[in-house]
């Protein structure tokens, strides 16, 4: 009995180790594939969504690096290139101010495109957008270090690289959406605008929901107070 159990646990742990290795291998493959995506976006994003080459763990890593880049940029860039009042900065606030719009925009895009025969599922959109963020941190993280080796009149170097990272990422996001949903460029552009409108509607609904919730809570609280007041 005890032997059988021990054998079972042995195969279990072996299986688990193999599973872990497989996971780790697919994670590494995903990381490697990311560089294919940013250099060959049309091909890369198509396979990402339709050949299941996307990896959620890798996408989460990229998103985390993107948020980390934001925080590190504010804290560690040389003061010549950035005006960040460090004494007033809350790093969680800064990170969430990027994370929440990102998620809301993904959600809005998914909500809108499913209605107009977009092929992408929410997971596909999320992964594609996380991959599209790569150039931002890929260029800006080293740039934080470089900013501490530059003088003020060399700022053009800094700003050019900065804009390259943003333009590249914007291009990737556009191509990513196009390939994931199998849309034409014109339709993708229209749906970018529609997405922003959708995000605004989501924001509005959330605000309405919370204000109604607080009103409802307020009603019950005041009723409770009234009852307590009467009873005593």
């Amino acid at each position, binding site marked *: 009995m005890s032997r059988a159990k021990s054998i079972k646990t042995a195969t279990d742990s072996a299986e688990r180790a193999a599973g872990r290795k497989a996971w780790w291998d697919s994670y590494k493959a995903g990381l490697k594939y990311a560089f294919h995506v940013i250099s060959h976006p049309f091909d890369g994003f198509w396979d990402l969504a339709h050949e299941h080459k996307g990896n959620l763990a890798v996408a989460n890593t990229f998103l985390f690096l993107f948020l980390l880049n934001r925080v590190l940029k504010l804290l560690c860039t040389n*003061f*010549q290139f950035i005006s960040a009042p460090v004494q007033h900065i809350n790093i969680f606030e800064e990170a969430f101010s990027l994370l929440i719009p990102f998620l809301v925009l993904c959600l809005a895009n998914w909500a809108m495109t499913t209605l107009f025969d977009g092929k992408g599922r929410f997971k596909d959109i999320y992964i594609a957008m996380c991959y599209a963020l790569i150039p931002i941190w890929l260029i800006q993280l080293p740039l934080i270090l470089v900013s501490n080796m530059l*003088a*003020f*009149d060399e700022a053009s170097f800094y700003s050019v690289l900065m804009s390259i990272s943003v333009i590249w990422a914007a291009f990737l996001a556009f191509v990513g959406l196009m390939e994931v949903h199998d849309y034409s460029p014109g339709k993708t552009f229209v749906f970018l605008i529609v997405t922003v409108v959708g995000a605004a509607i989501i924001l509005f609904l959330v605000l309405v929901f919370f204000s109604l919730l607080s009103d409802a809570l307020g009603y019950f609280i005041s009723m409770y107070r009234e009852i307590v007041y009467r009873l005593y």
Partner: protein
Amino acid sequence: MTRMKRVLTCLMCVLLLVCETTALADDSYDLNKDGFSTSYTYGYDYWGDVQASPDAYRVSEVIDSVHLGLDLLDGKRMNKPQALFARGNDLYVCDTGNNRILQIRYEENGEYSLQRIIDKVNIGGELSDIKSPYDVYVDEQDNIYVADYGNFRVVKMDKDLNWILEFTKPSDATFDQNLDFLPKKIVIDNAGRLYALVQNVNKGLVKFEADGVFTGFIGANNVVVSTAEYIWKRYFQTQEQRSKSEAFVPTEYENICIDKDGFIYATNTVFSEYDLKWDNAKPVRRLNGVGTDILIKNDRYPPIGDLYWEEQTNNQVYGPSRFTDITVFDNDIYVLVDRIRGRIFGYDSQGIMLWAFGTKGNIDGAFNGAVSIEHMGYDLFVLDQLKGNITVFKPTEYGTKIYSAIETYLAGDYDSSATLWNEVMKLNANYPMAFRGIGRALLRQDKFKEAMDYFERAHDRDNYGRAFKLYRKEWVEKNVWWIVLILAVLLLIPVISGRINRMKWEVIMHEQSKVHKDGN
């Protein structure tokens, strides 16, 4: 029971402490008995946060009608005085409500006396009254110019009050002949030309040659129209609506002043808060000969006085600073007076705020209706039209050190300037100017790292970059062999490892070929 008591006492103590701190935190309205609080004088740091500062100026005297002896003389106290002018040791006060000008002698030691009362001008033996004078100017030859508002003229007289010349309404077509000539503020340049700020004239300053001939307008305010407003008016309003809505006209200046080089400084108080934020309002201007604004603004914030203000409430104190007057020292430092909060702001020639102080109120050092400011040396004189008195401010040790540090720097004596800035820094560790001054001197002594440190504190990017470049050069020169070594290693490693791999591969291929041969 005793424990309860102790807890209660503790609580009371905490409460008292909280009350005390809130009382201190409320800045300008909580003044000590001597009229000064910790934040009577203040400045803004790089982030625009208010930083309390040592006093740059303190009240030395308050000159009022009683002390001048006006009560005993004719019983007429100063009534709505509008302007102040200083020349030599003489202070001229336009006692507008009483149709006269008071000439006051002010000595260095703080003694003052009424010299004479100017209320008439002698035109060839005939005495002509002055009627509600709004401004007075005295040139180097002691000729007195009076903006004789009530008589529609600017009159020039010699020091014995004999009439010399009159500047009256120009007959030129460019001057609207339906308007009365109502001069409010005047300045005279070195060549004797008169620049007058005339009420209801929005084409700029009215300019007269020394012989009284009108030669045009200079420095008209630009009309600021927002795009949205323009589109609305141009395309959506009907003709009737357009004719009924207010027209876009340039605004008039509030006050003018001339510096030693003949540039006119003008202040403007008619603007919207929105324009101020993007520096479209330009509340202070330095006009050159053709009326272009050439004021230098090298700071992060333009010279607009207070950076933050309350929105309009029932309280009288609201909105941005509105500068009623300006005076310029010989070292191009200019001082502005704000009528909204009774505050005085000093800026250096680069547009960097040196200090700000003042408040509303009745105690010495506070104002109800600050209307005009003048200087003698570094002493400041502020005229309050509602209180009818003149407050004399003298610079403290701190203020004097700032001035001499700036002046020694301008004179090219950088090392003693740095010594002075060091002393300023000891008095006020929140003063970016001091850090910058010390940094500059350190940079000159080739102490790049230390200079960078000070420039970073001052948030001076330009100078930091300069120091950093030199520091980087020095660092590279010192560590050049290490850099070469590391680069060489980085380049050689792939080459060597590639060769090793190749050799391994060749060995393997050789072995395999042997195996094949053996097989055959």
